[in-house]
């Protein structure tokens, strides 16, 4: 490869794994937490449905 070009791009290839890992982790973190939170909410709503049923059976 052209030595000057190699020099120009020297840090790009070294940095890429870290930068991409940072992006990836951030996406996984945000997306994962959003999913987790929504999942918890659906859990509570399921619980409410069960409760409602039992209330309906009693009355």
């Amino acid at each position, binding site marked *: 490869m052209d030595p000057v070009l190699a020099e*120009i791009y020297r840090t790009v290839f070294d940095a890429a794994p870290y930068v991409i890992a940072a992006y990836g982790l951030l996406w996984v*973190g945000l*997306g994962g937490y959003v999913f987790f939170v929504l999942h918890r909410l659906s859990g509570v709503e399921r619980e409410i449905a069960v409760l409602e049923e039992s209330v309906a059976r009693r009355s």
Partner: protein
Amino acid sequence: MGVKTDSPKEVRPEVADKKVLGLSKDSWIYTFLGLGFVLTTLDFLMAFLVSPLVLGAKVSGVRVIGGAIVQNQLLFSQKIFYFHVPVALGSFLVFFFTAFYGVRFLMTKDKIYDTKAKIATEVTLLFVILTLITGDLWTRFEWGQWWVWEPRLTTYFIMTLLVIAYFVLRNSIEDEERRATYAAVFGIVAFLDAPISFAITRMIPSSVHPVVLRSGGGLLPTQLIPFLSGLFGMLMIAWVIYQVRLKEEVLRERVEAVKAALEDDLTADAPTFTSFAKPETPGQS
């Protein structure tokens, strides 16, 4: 001083709607969530495809790349800026709400503000940890070390510890009102401490590592647009998380109340649970 609970209007579960993962399908929360992800994706794509690489040290020659004359090293590591700085700013903005709702709680003694402050702190913890991780990966590349006591990293480390301390404090108090008050007080003090921590770590020269000053400089539109879309996208996601968690907390409280009422009902009819089964809508009764 009794802890007020909020009006029943707010806590009525919308059980009749169709649900996707616990939310009604047409919920505006989904609109914001979608918008947030669109904006962060825009940030992601623009950062890599549109924004120019920042120039580093001069190289020994000149080359033409894509019609432009390049005589400096191209710095890829700076790309982290489009994600790291928005999430860092976001964490601080969300932390502000911990303190804000803390103040509101102390003023009103309304329990809902305690819940809101708690959830804001949870979101802060997520954002602070993400800031630490992204910042640390940058540090690993730039300085070749996994950890450097650099003011920004140090501040965020301390902020993480403060947020964890907030939850340790909450978990070690049984009494509800006392827990809310102490948490509010600590939330306010911790929020004040974070900027002081940043200022002082920068002021005090450390003999171990130099303070790295990044010049702010002007941003090109191709740099500013992904940055801002990332910032707003992440704030929207933070807001969605906050809203979903708030809804969950309020519902959970309701569930606990109903459960307690059902247990009481083994002996006598409890009015709370019958009213829960057929919620009275204002105007209907």
